[in-house]
């Protein structure tokens, strides 16, 4: 009997730590995710510090030094079709590429989560109505919708961010609604209702903390798609306009050089690929770290 009594008041073995501390710890032990995170941080840092670390002016070209190969004196990664230094353009390009890739996801996260949590918590007819509207957007393949919107709105950074946000909001909203509906029927939410709490308090204390995690993981996965799409829009001429440096745009303008300087022509795509795959791998790692449950 004493043993049983002891078992009931037994001290938990591990020191208590929060959920996110555990996630971070597991993430730190995942080599793939850590490498991916490092790459992302390096690219982001380079983009932020561009004026300090770039060797040349991204807009200044030279007609006699066009399309020089990698390793040419003075142009470590070669020069583009207007004689501008590639290394500089790539570093500065990171700024815009990251911006147009990440900004729509952030906006969509905020808007989509709000809509999804709202619909998921309220349930019933409002939920059905909102989800049906979202289904209409799902009836378009994302690329098509992005291009349709961009095509209609016109080129430009702001327009392409708006288009991509509109494309991503339904996806995030759907995930948010699904997770919220699951959480809403949990016993602890019912217990909170029994305690007399109003819906706002319940959402704030009990729902948000449990729901934002999975939505966030989904959103980080979306960044890789967003970067490819955003650069793709610029590739088509619908996003960033010349002479601003952006990886997708550079890929387009360098197409004529694939016969003369193929390596240089391919460089901007390498950056898009590298960033995208890093976000993808990091997102996968994050999901694994968050899925562990006792």
């Amino acid at each position, binding site marked *: 009997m004493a043993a049983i009594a002891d078992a009931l008041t037994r001290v938990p073995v591990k020191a208590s730590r929060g959920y996110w501390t555990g996630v971070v710890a597991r993430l730190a032990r995942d080599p793939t995710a850590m490498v991916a995170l490092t790459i992302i941080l390096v690219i982001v840092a380079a983009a932020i510090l561009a004026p300090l670390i770039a060797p040349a002016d991204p807009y200044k070209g030279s007609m006699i030094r066009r399309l020089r190969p990698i390793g040419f004196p003075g142009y470590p990664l070669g020069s583009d079709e207007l004689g501008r230094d590639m290394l500089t353009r790539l570093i500065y390009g990171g700024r815009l590429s990251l911006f147009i890739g990440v900004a729509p996801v952030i906006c969509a996260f905020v808007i989509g989560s709000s809509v999804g949590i709202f619909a998921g918590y309220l349930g019933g007819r409002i939920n059905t109505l909102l989800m049906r509207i979202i289904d209409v957007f799902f009836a*378009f393949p*994302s690329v*098509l919708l992005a*291009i349709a919107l961009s095509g209609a709105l016109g080129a430009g950074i702001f327009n392409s961010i708006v288009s991509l946000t509109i494309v991503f909001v339904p996806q995030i909203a759907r995930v948010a609604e699904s997770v919220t509906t699951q959480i809403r029927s949990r016993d602890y939410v019912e217990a909170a209702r029994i305690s007399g709490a109003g819906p706002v308090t319940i959402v704030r204390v009990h729902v948000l903390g449990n729901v934002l995690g999975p939505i966030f993981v989904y959103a980080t996965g979306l960044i890789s798609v967003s970067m490819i799409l955003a650069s793709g829009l610029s590739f088509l001429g*619908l996003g960033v306009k010349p002479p601003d440096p952006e990886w997708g745009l550079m890929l387009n303008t360098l197409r004529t050089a*694939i016969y003369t300087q193929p390596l240089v022509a*391919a460089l901007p*795509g390498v950056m898009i*690929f590298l960033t995208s795959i890093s976000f993808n791998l990091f997102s996968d790692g994050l999901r694994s770290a968050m899925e562990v449950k006792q």
Partner: protein
Amino acid sequence: MPLYILRRVLYVLPVAIGVSIICFLLVHLAPGDPLTAVMPIDATAEQQAEMRRAYGFDQPLPIQYGIWLWKVLHGDLGNSIATGRPVLAEVRRAVGNTLILASVATVIGFTFGTFFGFVAGYFRNSPLDKAASALSVFGVSVPHYWLGIVLVIIFSAQLGWLPPTGAGPDGSGNWRPDLEHLRYIILPAITMSVIPMGIIARTVRALVAEILAQEFVQALRAKGLSEWGVFKHVVTNAAPTALAVMGLQLGYLLGGSILIETVFAWPGTGFLLNAAIFQRDLPLLQGTILVLAMFFVMLNLVVDVFQTALDPRIQRS
């Protein structure tokens, strides 16, 4: 079962209407007078007024939508500003090319993707799995337009084996399944297949791993079923979802072909869209998008019904 099909079709109707509304609104999203979007620039004042009345731009929006929808249902998608030809004709011509490309790409993607996915799922956590998973991550992370350029660089610019652009030897408008045209489809199709391959590989891997881990598989093995028998079981269980994903990927490719078609100058709907955007040819843009979106909706419906037919569990609900 027929009741279920009817329900799914009825459900699609409001979605289709919603899609048509969005397509309709696209023209009005564009900055500026919508009239300039549908008219050549050099129209006279009387022609403008006439067009305005014909399109009903002086009417409230819902009525305009009604007029537009009525026309659409009768096959009138307007005329292209650039060529003057009916939009429907242009789209019809282009859709064929895109369908061919997308289908070939889907088949390639599905074949390799399923293979990699199966290998990864069966030999979970082995080096084989890691390699296959790496390939599928690659597939979904690579910017496909860049991959196309890289392939052109390698196989066309450097090696000269394959043509860089076009669907046929004389820049012909259409692709035909003969030896001459075969070389032209290889690079675009492979490029296009990479993303579906990655997604299908990922899906199949997860499916296979999940099925193998289920208790009924252990029970089958304990009863002495051979590995081949187990394999057949896995295939039967995974097939519905895998096929559904393949169907969806085909849909995505149809809609998202614009980037690849731009790289390879493939005369499909994507290329058409590109032209429409740059010529501000809004009727063409609107018409093409409407057709593509409807294709996707119908495809989703087919996939849905098909999946239900194969999976008895869904039927009962």
